[in-house]
């Protein structure tokens, strides 16, 4: 087996992640990119509740510590506490936003104008994005919506094309030898170049991206996967992009089917209630 030593830089705020062994490097990227499924599974299992999901992550942090020490999957781990704190902070901001939005009295809509620091707007918008992500995840009951949220995050990343290109080129050229770097700092710079002058937004995207990285840590306790080449060959996958897209599409279709079924059930229950006015069945959850 070919050994690789890949360093993934996650912006300036984290330590690099070092992963040894070619297969596990490949596995890392494959599962990292498939993290959306992991997250949706967790949401489904936990009744789409962000508290539960964060709780799951807490539990996974403990598992992670054991995994890191196992020696089989050597990871000089990123600052996971930082990511966890970001998750909690997101929920706090979301909770505060909800409370503030539902409470208080009527006020005047008369407007004034003032000059403000550019950083204020950046911070305010970023926090609102974080809060809406966290709030959205907490209340959405459709896994397809979660996919859509995650895909939106991915799209932001892919706008820069750097992340996508680096992975694809590495797959195509088999350049997982020596140092391969995912340059998150470069992505941030490109976001700025594209007019998204928003470091905090980038950090949000990076933090959500790191949620996906949990999948690989969970899998570290499982037997090593086949190499990506044999995996693709055995599963008739000719392109990792197509495979990823199909996987997501299939999940979305399944979710849509479930949603349609749920709506049919509701309609059916409603019609039963209409037919039997004395029934106590009010439908819904």
């Amino acid at each position, binding site marked *: 087996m070919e050994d690789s030593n890949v360093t993934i830089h996650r912006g300036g705020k984290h330590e690099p992640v070092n992963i040894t062994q070619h297969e596990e490097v490949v596995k890392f990227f494959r599962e990292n990119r498939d993290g959306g499924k992991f997250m949706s599974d967790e949401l489904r299992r936990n009744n789409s509740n962000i508290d539960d999901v964060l709780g799951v992550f807490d539990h996974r942090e403990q598992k992670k510590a054991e995994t890191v020490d196992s020696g089989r999957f050597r990871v000089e781990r990123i600052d996971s506490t930082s990511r966890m704190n970001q998750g909690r902070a997101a929920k706090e*901001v979301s909770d505060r936003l909800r409370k*503030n939005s*539902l409470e208080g009295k009527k006020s*005047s809509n008369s407007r*004034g104008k003032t000059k403000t620091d550019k950083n204020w*707007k950046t911070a305010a*918008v970023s*926090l*609102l994005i974080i809060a809406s992500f966290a709030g959205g995840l907490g209340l959405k009951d459709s896994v397809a919506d979660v996919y859509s949220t995650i895909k939106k995050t991915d799209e932001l990343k892919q706008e820069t094309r750097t992340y996508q290109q680096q992975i694809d080129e590495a797959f195509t050229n088999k350049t997982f030898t020596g140092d391969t770097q995912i340059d998150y700092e470069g992505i941030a710079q490109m976001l700025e170049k594209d007019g998204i002058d928003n470091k905090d937004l980038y950090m949000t995207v990076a933090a959500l991206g790191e949620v996906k990285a949990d999948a690989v840590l969970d899998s570290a306790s499982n037997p090593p996967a086949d190499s990506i080449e044999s995996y693709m060959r055995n599963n008739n996958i000719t392109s990792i992009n197509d495979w990823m897209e199909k996987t997501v599409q299939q999940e979305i279709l399944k979710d849509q089917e479930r949603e349609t079924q749920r709506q049919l059930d509701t309609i059916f229950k409603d019609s039963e209630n209409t037919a039997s006015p004395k029934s106590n069945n009010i439908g819904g959850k």
Partner: protein
Amino acid sequence: MEIEYVIIDDKRFGVIEEKNANDITYVFLANLEDPTDQLIRKYTKENSEDLVPLDSDNEFQFALNLFNN
């Protein structure tokens, strides 16, 4: 950078974004002194003079979705 603000509870809140749906405009606001202090208010086409809190969790969720889309 110039922005609009409204005064709520004697604090100045900058207007981050406004989104309209069904003759209701949702205003996304953040405290000018503390951007973590945020809230959503709404006004209607019939009464655009008053900003009022949202009615329910469902409406809050609706407003968040509106912001995201």
